[in-house]
């Protein structure tokens, strides 16, 4: 075991890393100390690699580690370990959508007429036109709608009465009693398992009310098991998956909004899709997944890059669904450059502007097949 000065050093360094957001348990500290015991402590790079390989477990944390190492062991002035931004409890600006684009939806404040259940009215109401109270009410309904999941055939075999593959293991056991005659045959067959779902949600100003609803929807889908990934974008793209599994989705959205929104910049759909394809598509996250893009298709940069990136996306994905709340308006035509460029690569084109259309989205997701016409 290394000397006590080194032990103290490493333990403190572990604390620095923990503070910077890394998960450094006692086992890792133990490994680091045993590792240092094996290498030459005079060689700075050996010490560096040993600590890095024992204390870090995720590629995302390497940069933080490097900064912390530089600050701690080399006392580089002015270079402190970058802290992870922690989401604060700020609600999204709920009033924003009410100012702009909810004109064609029923006027808010209207009391439910007799003969209609309030729920039925709310189902048809545009999310952007809802009062905070009404939205609170539909939260639960959205969560119920999200309890669906597209399925795919697994390669794994499970016992099944009407399967086609003989379960030889069982057969041999059963044959023991009958002297090698397989009297009772059991079968196995492939079962269905949840398909990957990836949501890319535009959270720029015009999309804000819908983004909230969609993320609540997705929060429920995440609850249906692993293999759900959520990303939000405005001028930049950010991954929201970890927040969605552990935190209140609205808090997560608010925190993300501050990270990805540059209010003067407008939406960059093309470059956000590109960022996704480059970083996550390359790691095959898209392969075999149902990708849901939620955006109104307003693009400042022109449609060319959207077409390129949608083509890349659709080649790898199992199916691409585009959710555009503007489609809920009866006279809407997908004329905006971005939207028109994307449509050829979209398998299903849906509105998603109210609860009824989220139900429709849920149905499409659970029964989707490859290459529907949009």
């Amino acid at each position, binding site marked *: 075991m290394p000397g006590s000065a080194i032990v103290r050093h490493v333990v403190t360094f572990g604390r620095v890393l923990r503070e910077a957001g890394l998960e450094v348990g006692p086992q890792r500290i133990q490994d680091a100390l045993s590792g240092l015991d094996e290498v030459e402590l005079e060689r700075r790079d050996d010490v560096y690699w040993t600590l890095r390989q024992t204390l870090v477990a995720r590629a995302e944390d390497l940069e933080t580690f490097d900064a912390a190492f530089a600050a701690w062991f080399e006392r580089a002035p002015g270079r402190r370990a970058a802290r992870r931004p922690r989401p604060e409890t700020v609600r999204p600006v709920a009033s924003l959508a009410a100012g702009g684009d909810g004109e064609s939806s029923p006027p808010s404040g209207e009391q439910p007429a007799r003969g209609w259940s309030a729920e039925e009215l709310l189902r048809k109401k545009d999310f952007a036109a809802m009062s905070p109270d009404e939205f609170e009410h539909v939260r639960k309904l959205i969560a119920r709608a999200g309890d669906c999941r597209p399925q795919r055939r697994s390669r794994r075999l499970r016992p099944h009465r009407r399967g086609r593959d003989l379960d030889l293991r069982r*057969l041999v056991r059963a044959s023991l009693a009958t002297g090698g005659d*397989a009297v009772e045959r059991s079968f196995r067959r492939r079962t269905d398992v949840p398909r990957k779902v990836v949501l890319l949600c535009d959270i720029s100003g015009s999309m804000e009310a819908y983004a909230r609803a969609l993320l609540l929807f997705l929060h429920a889908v995440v609850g249906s098991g692993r293999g759900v990934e959520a990303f939000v974008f405005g001028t930049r793209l950010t991954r929201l998956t970890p927040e969605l599994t552990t935190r209140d989705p609205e808090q997560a959205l608010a925190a993300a909004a501050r990270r990805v929104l540059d209010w003067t910049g407008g939406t960059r759909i093309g470059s956000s899709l590109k960022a996704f394809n480059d970083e996550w598509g390359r790691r095959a996250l898209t392969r075999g997944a149902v990708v849901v893009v939620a955006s109104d298709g307003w693009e400042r940069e022109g449609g060319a890059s959207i077409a390129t990136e949608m083509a890349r996306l659709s080649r790898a994905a199992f199916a691409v669904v585009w959710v555009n709340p503007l489609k809920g308006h009866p006279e809407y035509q997908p004329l905006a450059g971005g939207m028109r460029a994307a449509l050829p690569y979209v398998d299903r084109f849906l509105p998603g502007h109210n609860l009824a259309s989220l139900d429709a989205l849920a149905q499409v997701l659970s029964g989707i097949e490859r290459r529907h016409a949009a």
Partner: protein
Amino acid sequence: MPFASIDDLQSALLAADYLPDRGLGTALFLALRLQKPLLLEGEAGVGKTEAAKALARAQGARLIRLQCYEGLDVAHAVYEWNYSRQLLHIRAAQEGSVAEEELFGPEFLIRRPLLEAIESTDPVVLLIDEIDRADDEFEAFLLEVLSDFQITIPEIGTIRAKRRPSVILTSNRTRELHDALKRRCLFHWIGHPSLEREIEIVRLRVPGVPERLAAQAARFVQGLRSLDLAKPPGVAETLDWAQALAALGHEELSAEVVEETLGSVLKYHEDLLSVRDETLVGLLEEARSAR
């Protein structure tokens, strides 16, 4: 044969035709000394799988490889009973019944990579390749094997490793692995090599490649990596390319040569299209300025 220091290990790897940088050398050394599995991540084609193979060669150990895929299960990773032999055996016994212990004994067992690695009495490097492709259930199972180095077969009992295999896991990060699994592993990220190192790697792995050509090809590929490509080429692509160029008898790069052979470096149509004309000329000039 244990290695006394990182330098020792690195020269043994070099003798096995693999050129690791100090970081990877340290990682492999620590994995051996601390007897912990090593998780290697990095872009495709940076030599993750190759590292395990080289480690086996350097130690004179046997390499046992388990290629992961979705739906990989115990029957394909650990063991399976030889059902047809079992059935024949029951038949052959004719009268008189067959004892169950007899039927589920070691001679009816088909050993798959994990069991083979655990049972081996010779030194073994166990390569669990592309673990991110296997599903959660398998990962959980692997966790058990990697923490205790033992496998339980209900009919036979628990089989403990007589000698711990060195374990290398690789992942392309198509999904995040379980924390519990990561906690049991040392972790090393393999990046693209520096220019000097890449030239050295080409010269080591493509015998007979002209020195000039090796330098130019490596520099050209480094230039490609700085472009905005769908799939930047890895060291594996540089080696493929250098091999192709050497086989065609070229001494150095020219526009025609690059046009003809670029398909062995860039595997995506869009990427091939985007590296045309001025881009290509620029990269080529840069590459040819290499001494």
